[in-house]
Structures are given as C-alpha cells and as structure tokens.
C-alpha cells in the first residue's frame, strides 16, 4: 500500500522548535501562513506596500513573542491577533490616508459592461469598509472574509462576543447604507 505523502508537521510542533531558536521551523510557519497574514493586511490597509510591511512586521512580532504563545488556541488565531493589531496600529497612525485596492481584488463580471458595474459596486463595498473605524473593520473582515466565528473574532481582538456583535451590526449597516445610496443615485434620471 502506498503510504502517501508524509503527514504535515503540526503548527504547534513548529512553534516549539522555533522557540528553541530553530529559524527554519519558523520559516515553515511563515510559508504556511503568508497568504493569511498578507490577505488580512491587504484587506485592512488596501495598499499592497503597506500590506507587505504590516504582514512582515507581524511575523517579526510573532518571532519575538513566541514565548507568549500558550498553545491553548490555534497558531492561526494567535497570528490573526498579531496581524490585526499591527494593521490597527497602522490605521491609527495613518488616520485620514486614502488608498485604493489593486484591480486584481475586484471580481470581474461576465462582460465589459457587467465588469464595469461589478467593479463600481465592488468599489462601493470596499470604500464603505474603508470608512469603518479600525476595530470595526478588523471585526468585520475577520468574520466576513476570514469566516471566523463570533467567539474566534472575540478571542483574536480580545473583546467580548457582545462587543463583536455590536461592531458587526454597525459595519453591516454602513455597507447596506452605502449600497442604498448608489441605488438611489442610479435611479435618478440625470445620474
């Protein structure tokens, strides 16, 4: 019988080795979770350069704080926390800065006309997300894009689940309101 590929080493094993100074074990963790860290950072910050800086800084923070990883949560939950906090710091320091998401993040439609409409509606959603306060934005993206549970979002952001719920409601209302505005504009004959 073919034994198949070797079983992947668990994250917790790699964390333990990294803690002992094995930087190759940490490199494996970085490779495994690069897309996760960069993806959250890009959605939070909407700028590829800022996202790379923040995601890199998050991994450096993780390396420096490995002793704080207790192992009672998944490594990814801990990493989400570090990435989210790094991005929230970025946004707070940089309040008022506007950035645009790269075109690759806009889902294309079926044809040129559909694509233009899809892109403009997607822009409205992205712009609405960008107006959210950093903490609300983090909660919304972790729940909606990363599909974490309410309890996981609470753990990542170190807030209560009722605080998560209120941040999510606020964010969802903002997005629905922004789409209403577009609909009303489109209904106007001179729009």
């Amino acid at each position: 019988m073919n034994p198949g590929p070797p079983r992947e080493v668990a994250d917790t094993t790699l964390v333990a080795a990294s803690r002992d100074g094995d930087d190759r074990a940490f490199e494996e963790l970085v490779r495994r979770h690069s897309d996760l860290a960069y993806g959250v950072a890009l959605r939070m910050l909407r700028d590829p350069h800022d996202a790379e800086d923040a995601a890199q800084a998050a991994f450096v923070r993780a390396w420096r704080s490995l002793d704080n990883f207790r192992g009672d949560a998944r490594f990814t939950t801990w990493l989400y926390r570090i990435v989210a906090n790094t991005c929230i710091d970025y946004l707070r320091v940089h309040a008022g800065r506007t950035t645009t998401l790269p075109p690759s993040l806009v889902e294309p439609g079926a044809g040129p006309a559909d694509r233009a409409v899809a892109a403009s509606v997607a822009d409205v959603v992205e712009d609405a997300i960008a107006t959210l306060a950093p903490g609300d934005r983090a909660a919304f993206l972790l729940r909606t894009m990363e599909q974490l549970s309410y309890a996981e979002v609470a753990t990542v952001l170190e807030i209560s689940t009722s605080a998560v719920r209120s941040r999510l409601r606020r964010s969802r209302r903002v997005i629905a309101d922004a789409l209403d505005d577009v609909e009303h504009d489109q209904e106007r004959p001179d729009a």
Partner: protein
Amino acid sequence: MPESPPVPLPCGQDPDDLVDQVWDGHGRDLTEHQRSCPHCQQRLRRHRRAHALVTDLRRVRIQAPTGFAHRVMGRVRHDDADEVAIHVGRTGTTSVSATVVELVATVAAHDVPGIVQVRNVGARGATLRMTVTVDLDRPIPDTIAALRSAVARTLLRLVGVTIEAIDVTVRDVVES
C-alpha cells in the same frame, strides 16, 4: 459615546435582528410574520444584496507576493530585538519595543514625497536603519533628507523617541 438603540420598523421588529439574520446566513429562512410583512421583506432584501456582494469579494483569493517569506526571514534572521527607553524617572521606566519604532518609522516614511517603497526597517537603541526605493524624478539627497526629518519628527511626536541616527540605503529607483 453609547449607541442609540435602532428605531424599530413600522411593524415593531428590531432591524438589528434582521441584520444578524441575513449576515449569519439565514436571510431566506423567513418567519411567518416576515413572509407577509413588506417592511421586513424590504429590509431583508437590502441586507441580502449587501451580503451577497461581500461574499463575492471573499471569493477573490489573495496570495502573498513572490519572495514574501524570504523577506520576512531576512528580517527575522537579522532581527535586533531591542527596546528603547523613552522615559526614565523615579517612578519607573517607560520603554517601547523596536517593533513600535519600526512601524511608526515605516508609516512616516511612506508620506515622504519621493519614497516609493520602504523595504526594510530596523531599530536598535536610538539608531534606525532603513532600506528604501525612491523616485528617480526627485534628487535622491533631497528625498533622503526629507525622509530623515519626517521619520525623526514623527517618532518624537507619536512615540516620544529621539532618534540620533538614521542610516538609509537606497536599494532601488523607479521613474514615476
């Protein structure tokens, strides 16, 4: 400031309950009341639309740029984990980690005209090392002078750290 409670719909329903219902994936599981209530249906429809659009955005898979892990490990392997004391007094010492200094320096650098990309930042004590990509359409000495000034000013204002030296390496240039 505490949020004011949402205004109930004309039918008496709490609109936040409808928000949760749709965004938690039950937007089509209507109660008996909702099946016959135009107010609830209108509200549910608008959140279903918003939810569907956001779900579409989620399908876009984001990948880290090529070489990302390599660059992270470059920083990790040359990491100068350090802390900078920003206040020493009889009541105690306040310190910030090098990470904080690096993060604020990176953000400040991005606002300097002519700085295209901040590729690496390392803080050790009161010295900062920065590797950047600059715009070739501006004189590089002017850009770097502006970078030093902006970074030092921002670190003093936001963190309380006085930086004594900023060593800058221009790794690449681009034409805007």
